[in-house]
Each structure stands twice: as structure tokens, then as C-alpha cells.
């Protein structure tokens, strides 16, 4: 097992140790006591979604720019495919945003 994998596993175990009392540390009197964790996880999940969406769109734009540079005659078709791909990738990040609006406020 490499050092990187060991660090990742330790991080995972630490997260699970934190998550346990937060999610399940409810007594019979209080209702769902993980209230403030919703905001924190909303922030993290939106950041992760936007980051990965940014990476995916970067790959799409890079491929499209190179295609248009190599073959300027096909620029219209490549531009169309690029726009369609960008919008569909964007919508994946927006699904996360919608979940956040449903859960927080």
C-alpha cells in the first residue's frame, strides 16, 4: 500500500469518526440534530461540483479549440458540438445547486 493511499484511508477514517456522532448523536428529545452540518456540506458539495464541472468544461473547450485550429472548415459543426457539450456539463453542476436550495432554506 503506497503512502498516498495510506493518507487517503486515514482521512476517510477520520471523516467517518467525525460523521458518526454528528449524524447519529441525537437524543430522544431533540429532532435531527445535524442541522448545521447541512450548511457545511452544502458549501463543500457545491465546491466539488463546480470544480469538477470546471475541469470537464476545460477539456471540452480545449478539444474544440484544437479541432477548430486543425480544421477551420468544420468550425461551425465543432462550435455546435462544443456549445451543446458545455450546456450539458453545466447542468450537472446546477443539479447540485438545486439540491442545495431544496435542503438549505
Amino acid at each position, binding site marked *: 500500500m503506497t503512502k498516498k493511499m495510506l493518507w487517503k484511508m486515514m482521512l476517510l477514517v477520520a471523516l467517518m469518526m467525525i460523521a458518526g456522532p454528528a449524524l447519529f448523536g441525537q437524543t430522544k428529545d431533540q429532532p435531527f440534530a445535524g442541522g448545521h452540518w447541512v450548511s457545511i456540506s452544502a458549501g463543500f458539495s457545491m465546491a466539488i461540483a463546480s470544480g469538477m464541472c470546471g475541469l470537464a468544461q476545460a477539456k471540452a473547450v480545449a478539444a474544440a479549440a484544437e479541432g477548430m485550429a486543425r480544421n477551420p472548415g468544420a468550425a461551425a459543426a465543432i462550435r455546435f458540438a462544443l456549445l451543446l457539450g458545455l*450546456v450539458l456539463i453545466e*447542468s450537472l453542476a*446546477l443539479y447540485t445547486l*438545486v439540491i442545495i436550495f431544496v435542503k438549505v432554506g
Partner: protein
Amino acid sequence: MHETELWITRLFNDHLAGAGNTLTGIVGMAPEARPWANFVTMQLVVALIIIVLFAILKPRLSVDRPGKLQHTFELAYGFLHEQAEEQVGHEGHHYLAFFGTIFFFILFCNLIGVVPGFEAPTMVPSVPAGVAIASFCYYNIAGVQANGFLKYLAHFAGPMPALAILMIPIELVSHLARPLSLTIRLFANMYAGEQVTMVFLKLTFLFVPAIFMGLHVFVSFLQAYIFMLLTMMYVAGAVAHEH
């Protein structure tokens, strides 16, 4: 999260509350004091604008001396027609009326949010959901009309009969996910655009919110085009067999 009323909605609620309660009573909702919601009156305003626009256009259409309005709409029609032919094929023009309606309706709904005193009806989830359900029904009906009911259902089974057990649930889920994704894409884009503009309006003034509002206008055009394009692709997939 009850929004404040626009001036148009206030007019509707003050004078036409009875009519509103009758309309909601048709679907079985209980009558309330101020039944008109912002998005309902905004949709009516958008429909009125589109009707007036085309009513002004029609008498000005002429073969010999086309005016500016005719040129603009010829550009729009040419663009829509070319897209429909490219996506659906030779029979694209049969469905062009629906595609054009969707495009103009969503475009005007999105853009009316930029005007002060009005609000984009596509900002509430109900309006994109309504248009998405209409799209869903339309492409299924178009598929049934083009191919016949049994043949249309048969194409859910995939290319080979042996794969049918695997393909049918996958195809069903993917078809049901289509109106969902159309709805959420349009709603989230419009809602996020308005929220971002509001946040920057709270932080600074004049130029920075205007930049984000400009981005919102661009996104409005793009989202209307994408909604129409995806509807075209779904219709193309539904009518595609053995034509």
C-alpha cells in the same frame, strides 16, 4: 418563501380574484384571498406580448418590399428551420411550429425578468416543468403518429430482442429523466442568474451587477436554444425509425 407581489399581480389580485379562484377551483384547489401568483401573471404578460408582436408582424409581411420586422423574423425562421432540418431530417418542418413556440416562449419568459418591475416566470420550478411536460408529451405523440403505437413501443426494446430485458428499464428511466433534466436545467439557470445578480447588487453598485445581468441575458438565450434543441433531438429519436 413567498415572494413580494409585482404591480401586475397586485392588479390581478385586487380586481380578478374571483376569476382566479374559479380557475384554481377547476383543478380542485381551495379558494384563497389572493390567488394570482407572480409567475402566472407574468406568463400571461409574455403570451400577450408574443401575440401582439405577431399580430403586428402579419399585416406587414410583403414579398416585394419587406420591412425590418420581416427581415428579423425571416432570420429567426431561417435559423429555426435549418436547425429542425438538421436535427429531425426531412420532416423537420412538420414540427417546426412547436419548436418555434417553445423557443420564443422560453426566450421571452427569460428575458422579461431583466426588465424592472417584471419577474421571469421561469424562475419558479412550475413553469419549466410545464414546458418540459409539454415537450415530453409532444415527442411521444409525434413518435406514435410517425411510427404507430406498437412500433413506437417496440423501439424501447433496443436493437436486438435478446437485449430487451436489459434495455427496457434503461430506456424507461432515461426517457423519464428527460423532462426532469429539462426542467432543472432551465429553472436552475434562471434562478441562479437572478440570485447572483442580487448578491452582487448587495455587494456593490451600478457596473458589476450590470455585467452579471448581461451574462444572465446571454444565458437566457442559450437556455432557450438548448431547450428547443433537446426537444428537437428527442423528437428526432422518436420519429426516426424506418422512415
